[in-house]
């Protein structure tokens, strides 16, 4: 990967029950993620995705760009903005902003419905030791 290159785009549509599966897998059962009725009562459009689920999609896109070995992802920093919802496609895109001595830094964004739900994400990829 060279400076200015795009990483392969990742597209994923979390299904209706994804937040429940992620809640079980991660242990985060905050009702805004699993209870549509309560989520609406606090002013949300319905139950929303866990930010860390969306971060995992950013991690996946970057790991895939590095060849798929989980040991290549050395660092990932994200900012959560807005909110992700189930049943709508998420697109993760990224651009290499630095590539030196095998170390690659990727600027990544996750977008859903025209909104950036993760921005200013920076991934550091290095070949596994």
């Amino acid at each position, binding site marked *: 990967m060279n400076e200015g290159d795009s990483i392969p785009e990742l597209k994923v549509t979390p299904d209706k029950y994804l937040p429940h599966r992620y809640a079980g897998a991660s242990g985060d059962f905050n009702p805004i993620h699993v209870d549509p009725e309560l989520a609406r009562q606090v002013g949300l459009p319905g139950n929303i995705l866990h930010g860390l689920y969306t971060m*995992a999609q950013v991690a996946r896109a970057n790991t895939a760009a590095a060849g798929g070995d*989980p040991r290549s992802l050395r660092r990932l920093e994200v900012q*959560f903005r807005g909110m992700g919802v189930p049943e709508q496609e998420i697109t993760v895109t990224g651009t290499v902003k630095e590539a030196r001595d095998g170390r690659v830094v990727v600027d990544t964004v996750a977008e859903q419905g025209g909104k950036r739900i993760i921005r200013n994400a920076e991934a550091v990829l290095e070949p596994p030791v």
Partner: protein
Amino acid sequence: MPVDDKARGKAYPAHEYEVGREKISEFAHAVGEDNPVYFDREAARAAGFRDVPAPPMFAVVYCAGAMGPAILDPEVGINFMAMVHGGQEFVWGEPVCSGDTISTTAEVKDISERGGMGFYIFESVSTNSDGREVARGTWTNIVRGV
């Protein structure tokens, strides 16, 4: 009104998490991972792992038991109804595999206020039983209307 920052620097006791193969597979499935190394011990060994490795973001699973008490600590004083997860960083070290016991400590790195919002920043440090660091997390929670 400035936020109460008396908990800055407060550290919490280590929490131990024993990593299991089925939990790794469950998590990998939930986040859409399809690399066989997360599901099949033979594939994992062929790729040079001791056992099935955890996907990088599995850090949220082994950190949860350490982060919960820190974020919920009344002395930190987060108003949960107004809290959003603002940002997250992980720096990964040694791979985590099924069978590992991961010990995680949490600390309040900073509490500050900007533009009527409170910023609560926590750091977690996770090590394996050889004492090697596997992940360092920076967790930024933002509370509106402090």
